[in-house]
């Protein structure tokens, strides 16, 4: 069916899954505040949150399978939105599953933590739906404010507080730029609706309009910050290290996914006709992110920081998809996002396990000889590392993710062959630290007196097992996932005049 977004009740219907999550989150919030802090309560609320997420996922899938669409309005009703929703919900599910056990171990009592994850997720879903810069702004803030708090969740940890503060200050700073960018784009085009902007850009001569150019640049800054693309990445390592590890995982995957999804939608629907203007900057942003993320990761000793830099590099890879400016790029983007989310989540789950109580064992030395004490964990971590590296079969779906990105890059109307070469060369650099993790785990003996790695809780193990299984299975038979990501491209109500070609 086609939602008429001018009709408030239909607009509400089009918001269905988002509303379900928000409403459920508020109920849980009340329940969380109802009882005094305790582990049982924390756990119960967490489980409730998991159920809620599952329900939302179900509803989202139901929406997605009905072939819905909408008239032109503030939100989009297309498969790209549902796909992004699902990835974010998956991330939230994983984060809460890990949090339940992590928080218990680290004595983080507030049950509201899980609810905050739900609120952040709601923000992401809004972002995924946004087809108006106003909604984009709202979604970003809704997501970010919750994440600022989540990053500082561990009140006993000065690092956690510091990370939270840094994220907050720099995030607000970047929001300023984003907002100014929105204002300038609005000022030059007279609209905040993406599709309308897109049409005006195509019809008018905005390519030489200074206000529009500066506005676009500032939008790029804002999104670049949220997705942690160099040189707007400086906050990421510190915040990732300081935040409780499940939240780090959440930030590295779901937050990034939502921000990127919006980024991509804005770029395709609103700025598609300005390709000449943003092509070079995005190209360089991608290249710099890949280079900086991968090289700096080489000198990291802390695995969480290492993964943070790796996630910066992955932002660079995903920016390649943005740079293509094609629908094929968006399909590649979604596919890559799935691969990346799975591997990152798994990796952080292992970091949690090895970290032990107090999260004190996060350095590479603590992974030494992991194979001899926890072979399953070591092998799983190996798979995650190889997947992030983009290695075929043993790295599972990671390879096909990179493959898809490269294919989109090479087949773009403006071929990105050089950027593809940069991508593979920086991937070689990335092998330097991913393999180092393998080396430490498999080839070094477990040092004398090294701390005992406790057996992880059932939820953590579940996350690890599920991600490994998904990575490996999708690494051998990826066609379903490819089909899904190809079907999940942004579809604007009116025909786009921007240069796009059919995805493969």
């Amino acid at each position, binding site marked *: 069916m086609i939602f008429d977004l001018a009709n408030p009740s239909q607009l509400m219907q089009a918001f269905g899954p988002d509303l379900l999550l928000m409403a459920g989150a508020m109920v849980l919030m009340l329940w969380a505040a109802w009882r005094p802090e305790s582990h049982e309560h924390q756990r119960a609320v967490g489980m409730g949150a998991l159920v809620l997420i599952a329900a939302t996922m179900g509803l989202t899938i139901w929406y997605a399978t009905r072939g819905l669409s909408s008239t032109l309005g503030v939100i989009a009703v297309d498969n790209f939105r549902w796909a992004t929703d699902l990835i974010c919900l998956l991330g939230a599910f994983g984060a809460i599953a890990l949090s339940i056990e992590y928080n218990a171990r680290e004595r983080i009592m507030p049950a509201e933590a899980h609810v905050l994850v739900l609120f952040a997720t709601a923000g992401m879903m809004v972002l995924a739906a946004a087809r108006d810069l*106003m909604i984009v702004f709202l979604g970003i803030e809704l997501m970010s404010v919750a994440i600022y*708090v989540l990053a500082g969740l561990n009140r006993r940890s000065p*690092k956690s507080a510091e990370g939270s503060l840094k994220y907050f*200050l720099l995030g607000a700073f970047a929001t*300023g730029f984003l*907002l*100014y960018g929105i*204002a300038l784009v609005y000022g030059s085009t007279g609209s*905040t609706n993406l599709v309308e902007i897109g049409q005006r850009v195509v019809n008018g001569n905005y390519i030489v309009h200074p206000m529009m150019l500066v506005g676009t640049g500032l939008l790029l800054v804002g999104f670049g910050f949220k997705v942690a693309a160099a040189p707007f990445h400086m906050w990421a390592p510190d915040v990732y290290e300081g935040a409780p590890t499940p939240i780090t995982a959440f930030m590295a995957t779901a937050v990034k996914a939502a921000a990127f999804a919006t980024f991509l939608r804005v770029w395709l629907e609103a700025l598609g006709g300005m390709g000449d203007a943003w092509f070079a900057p995005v190209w360089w942003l991608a290249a710099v992110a890949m280079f900086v993320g991968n090289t700096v990761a080489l000198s990291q000793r802390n695995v969480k920081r290492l993964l943070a830099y790796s996630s910066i590099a992955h932002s660079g890879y995903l920016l390649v998809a943005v740079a293509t400016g094609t629908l094929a790029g968006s399909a590649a983007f979604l596919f890559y996002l799935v691969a990346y989310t799975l591997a990152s989540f798994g990796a952080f789950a292992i970091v949690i396990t090895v970290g032990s109580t107090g999260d004190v064992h996060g350095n590479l030395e603590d992974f030494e000889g992991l194979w001899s004490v926890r072979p399953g964990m070591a092998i799983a971590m190996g798979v995650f590392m190889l997947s992030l590296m983009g290695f075929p079969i043993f790295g599972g779906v990671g390879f096909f993710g990179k493959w898809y990105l490269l294919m989109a890059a090479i087949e773009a109307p403006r071929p990105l062959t050089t950027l593809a070469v940069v991508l593979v060369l920086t991937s070689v650099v990335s092998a330097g630290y991913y393999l180092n993790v393998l080396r430490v785990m498999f080839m070094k003996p477990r040092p004398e007196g090294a701390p005992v790695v406790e057996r992880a809780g059932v939820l953590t193990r579940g996350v690890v097992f599920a991600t490994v299984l998904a990575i490996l299975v999708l690494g051998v038979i990826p066609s379903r996932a490819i089909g899904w990501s190809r079907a999940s491209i942004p579809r604007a109500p009116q025909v786009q005049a921007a240069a796009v070609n059919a995805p493969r």
Partner: protein
Amino acid sequence: MLVEALALSAVLFTIGVVGVLTRRNAIILFMCIELMLNAVNLSFVALSTLYGATGQVFVVFTMTVAAAEAAVGLAIIIAIFRHTRSVNLQNINLLKG
């Protein structure tokens, strides 16, 4: 009038940015950021004379969000104050490298 308003907005925004870059006190820093946001609001209001109500609606949103941000931000600053007994950002660098 529009041009002047936009110019003022840009100047205010720049002052905010410079403040963020130069000040070391977390609270003052945050106030500079608020300045940036309000500068943008000025732009929105000015532009809405050209394009109608959208800009003004946006300003309302922005102010609301800024208020929420302020609440969370101050809470975070208090949290860090508990640990370091200071809100000077130069003393806050446990995380680096």
